[in-house]
């Protein structure tokens, strides 16, 4: 996977062939839902384009709350060669690893990616990762609908871990709040894209089959 970034479509096509695109038994309190493959592909594609081509293969990225690993794998396909996926749910990591094995079969060029998984709680108090260990942190956090400000805790962790960039998805309805908060932190932040999150009815309390949620992809440059 040298050279130019593959297209969103190419990444998406590969991701859509993975066996575990959904959680087997999602846990409500963690707000588990899988990143839709087209969103994962777009995010990864954007992240890859933001990094110089000659640097892309030597940055260390982390995917916080990786779940079944879709976003982490999308990053590998986009040409980021060093990705660590962490999640509090160690069973989900088993599925992530099965996905990785399936991807290496589908796309032998990506076998060389240094992709790792670890069970880590993405919370400021119980985080098991050393600060500023990564160049890029990518996250599709819980949106905080079940547990208030769950997404903010994830974002704080991401800014604590990354040296340069954080890419994060948040509900568009929280845009002005987030923008003020990030400004207070002294981060340079911008909404890079407004996307549509088609959240399939993962939980029994989701009455409709699928709900579309407007989400923002934020690009945050971390204060050094």
């Amino acid at each position, binding site marked *: 996977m040298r050279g130019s970034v593959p297209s969103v479509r190419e990444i998406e096509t590969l991701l859509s062939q993975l066996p575990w695109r959904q959680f087997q038994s999602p846990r409500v309190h963690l707000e588990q839902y899988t990143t839709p493959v087209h969103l994962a592909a777009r995010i990864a594609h954007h992240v890859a384009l933001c990094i110089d081509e000659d640097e892309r*293969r*030597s940055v*260390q990225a982390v995917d916080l709350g990786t779940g079944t690993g879709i976003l982490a794998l999308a990053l590998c396909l986009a040409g980021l*060669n*060093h990705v*660590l996926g962490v999640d*509090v749910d*160690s069973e989900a*990591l*088993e599925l992530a*690893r099965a996905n990785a094995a399936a991807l290496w079969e589908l796309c032998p060029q990506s076998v*060389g990616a*240094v992709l*790792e*998984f*670890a*069970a*880590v*709680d993405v919370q400021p108090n*119980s*985080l*098991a*990762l*050393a600060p*500023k*260990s*990564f160049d890029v942190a990518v996250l599709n956090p819980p949106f905080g609908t079940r547990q208030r400000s769950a997404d903010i805790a994830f974002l704080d962790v991401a800014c604590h871990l990354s040296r340069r960039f954080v890419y994060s998805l948040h509900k568009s309805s929280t845009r002005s709040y987030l923008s003020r908060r990030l400004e207070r932190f002294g981060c340079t932040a911008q909404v890079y894209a407004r996307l549509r999150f088609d959240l399939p009815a993962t939980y029994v309390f989701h009455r409709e089959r699928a709900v579309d949620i407007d989400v923002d992809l934020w690009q945050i440059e971390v204060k050094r």
Partner: protein
Amino acid sequence: MRLLTHNLLICPVHKKPLAIRNVSAVDIIPVEYQPRFLLRMIPRLDWSLLRAAAVSVESDCVDALPEAAPSPSELPALEKAVESGDRLPLLDALQRLLLETHVVGGQLHCEHGEFYVIADGIPNLLADAAVNPSETASEQAACTTEGS
């Protein structure tokens, strides 16, 4: 778990580096040589932790690792050598240790006593998965026998 990942992990409770112990299985899986990534990582690594890890997994690369990390002033010369295509023993050792050495089974010990388990190559660093030997002395004895 590659030794690269090990170098980024800390105890979730005490925020201290973790020592690899009771290693039951290690895999060596070659990947493409990545000198630029390795050079970039040198200033960020906890060097003594890496050296200790290399000893824990009984790597034959231990001797190629100097006592201390190359200083920032030495890095430009290393970069130059890499750009001109030289294979440096130091980078070969880092390639093998950080990127190709996987701990498949073992434990990660905090200096405060508790430890975390690496099972099937995935380390579990959740605070509630910590094993505290002082609380579960008999269990720990069982683990140690298993690990050796």
